[in-house]
């Protein structure tokens, strides 16, 4: 299968500190891939590099929509361009728009797919009204899929924690990505919520036809969801493979156990 995201030799330095050291990574269409590693291994930095928030020091990042023309090089693209090209993300520390309603949060996700400008906003020609109506409806449908319709007109900041996590996913999906990056989606969730999240992720892969790359510490969730797993430690990739293989990989065990001993 053709990769939708392929990263090669990605390197990121902060001053003298090498946060990411020549990492290769590939996500194929329809896959769920997990990126794991001890705290501070550089996982979120990796996300920030490929989504354009940081400019990496070296390496190549290519994004290719399934079934369409050639890949797009992500190096040097601004975050909004990355999203426009079909890769959306969530954040480790939830970054919703707290003083906007739940629906509006999702509507923001539709922004980059539409084009009505200032004159349109002021004069509201029929085309614009249709578009506006469409946004509301699409966004509402998205909330239905994620199961948040109960909160439509609630401020995002007033949502319970688990619902906020799901809203972030809904917002990202509203940008119509073909690859979705989830940064610790299960953080802070209880067992029940995690289970629901597991089902949700599987369901959106089916329904939305997206590939998923996730960072997660909950190993149970990672093992049950992922098709493949990448393990990083100290900015380096130390293993790659199917969940079973990773479980038994000595390098991985050492990385994790080593951390345990330190702690």
């Amino acid at each position, binding site marked *: 299968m053709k990769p939708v995201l392929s990263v090669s030799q990605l390197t990121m330095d902060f001053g003298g500190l090498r946060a990411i050291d020549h990492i290769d990574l590939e996500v194929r269409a329809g896959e769920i891939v997990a990126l794991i590693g001890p705290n501070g291994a550089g996982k*979120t930095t990796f996300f*920030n590099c490929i989504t354009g*928030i940081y400019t990496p020091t070296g390496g190549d990042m290519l994004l290719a929509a399934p079934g369409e023309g050639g890949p797009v090089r992500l190096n040097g693209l601004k975050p909004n361009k990355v999203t426009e090209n079909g890769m959306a993300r969530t*954040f*480790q*520390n939830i*970054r919703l728009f707290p003083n906007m309603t739940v629906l509006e949060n999702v509507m923001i996700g539709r922004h980059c797919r539409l084009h009505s400008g200032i004159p349109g906003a002021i004069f509201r020609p029929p085309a614009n009204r249709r578009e506006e109506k469409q946004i509301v409806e699409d966004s509402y449908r998205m909330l239905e899929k994620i199961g948040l319709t109960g909160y439509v007109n609630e401020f995002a900041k007033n949502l319970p924690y688990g619902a906020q996590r799901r809203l972030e996913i809904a917002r990202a999906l509203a940008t119509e990505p073909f690859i979705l990056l989830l940064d610790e989606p299960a953080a802070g969730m209880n067992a029940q919520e995690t289970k629901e999240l597991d089902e949700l992720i599987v369901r959106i892969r089916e329904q939305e036809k997206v590939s998923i790359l996730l960072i997660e510490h909950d190993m149970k969730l990672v093992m049950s969801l992922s098709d493949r797993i990448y393990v990083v430690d100290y900015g380096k990739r130390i293993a790659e493979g199917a969940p079973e293989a990773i479980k038994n990989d000595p390098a991985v065990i050492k990385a994790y156990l080593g951390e345990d001993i330190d702690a």
Partner: protein
Amino acid sequence: MDYFLELFLGGLTRGSIYALIALGYTMVYGIIELINFAHGEIYMIGAFTGLIVISVLTLLGWNTVAIIIIAALVAMVYSAAYGYTIEKIAYKPLRGSQRLSALISAIGMSLFLQNYVLLAQTSNFLPFPNLIPEFGIVKPIEHIVRSTEIVIYIAAALVMVGLTVLIKFTRMGKAMRAVAQDRDMAMLVGVDVNRVISFTFVIGSSIAALGGVLVASHIGQVNYYVGFIAGIKAFVAAVLGGIGSMPGAVLGSLVLGWTESFFTGYISSDYEDVFAFVFLVLILIFRPAGILGRSQTDKV
């Protein structure tokens, strides 16, 4: 060369004056991220208090050196008290609200204090006697620099050194740094945040008062409005250097002082402020957090 030196010293005077005000600005900003618009007024109140003390003591016929020292001390105490009270009334109840609200409150305070002094004292400019003695050593270079100016340089330098020591080596300094970093966290580890904030206002205000007395001695007059203009300039200086950073405030002030001085000297004072602001914009475009400011990258 003489001309250059003169302009350099003129810029140094201006810079030192800005620094004495900017330090208070930057301290308050560092702790509670508030642009304390009333800080200029604190400086003005310091100058006025100094003037009042000087008048009373002169009437009593005290020795001039004693008078100026006592005047500066009393002015510092009173300005500190004003700073403390203002914080309690106008800023503390607003902690936790959006920052712009506190800014408006500060603006209201600034208006209030201006008019308070205008009504209680006078609208006229009052002469401020210069009681700083002319030092004998300065005599030969008197046409270049006077002892008042030298006192201003020394005061600015001493204040900066003192503050650095305070921040770096004392308990209170550590607490201040902790509050500046993360207020909630500091509270958790047992720092009395209210006390730290009050302390910051007290220190910042008394430095401003010292500045007020020295500048008034230098320039020879005060009225109720001198704080506003000086305050704006000092704020620009603090941002130029990187707001929240003490060495930054001093450096920014000096840079601003020299910029204005050399620009006036070699080009024209018509556009002196324009140039100061253009310079500020240029600096911030290339260093968005000021000369010594830490550029904050978002934690994503």
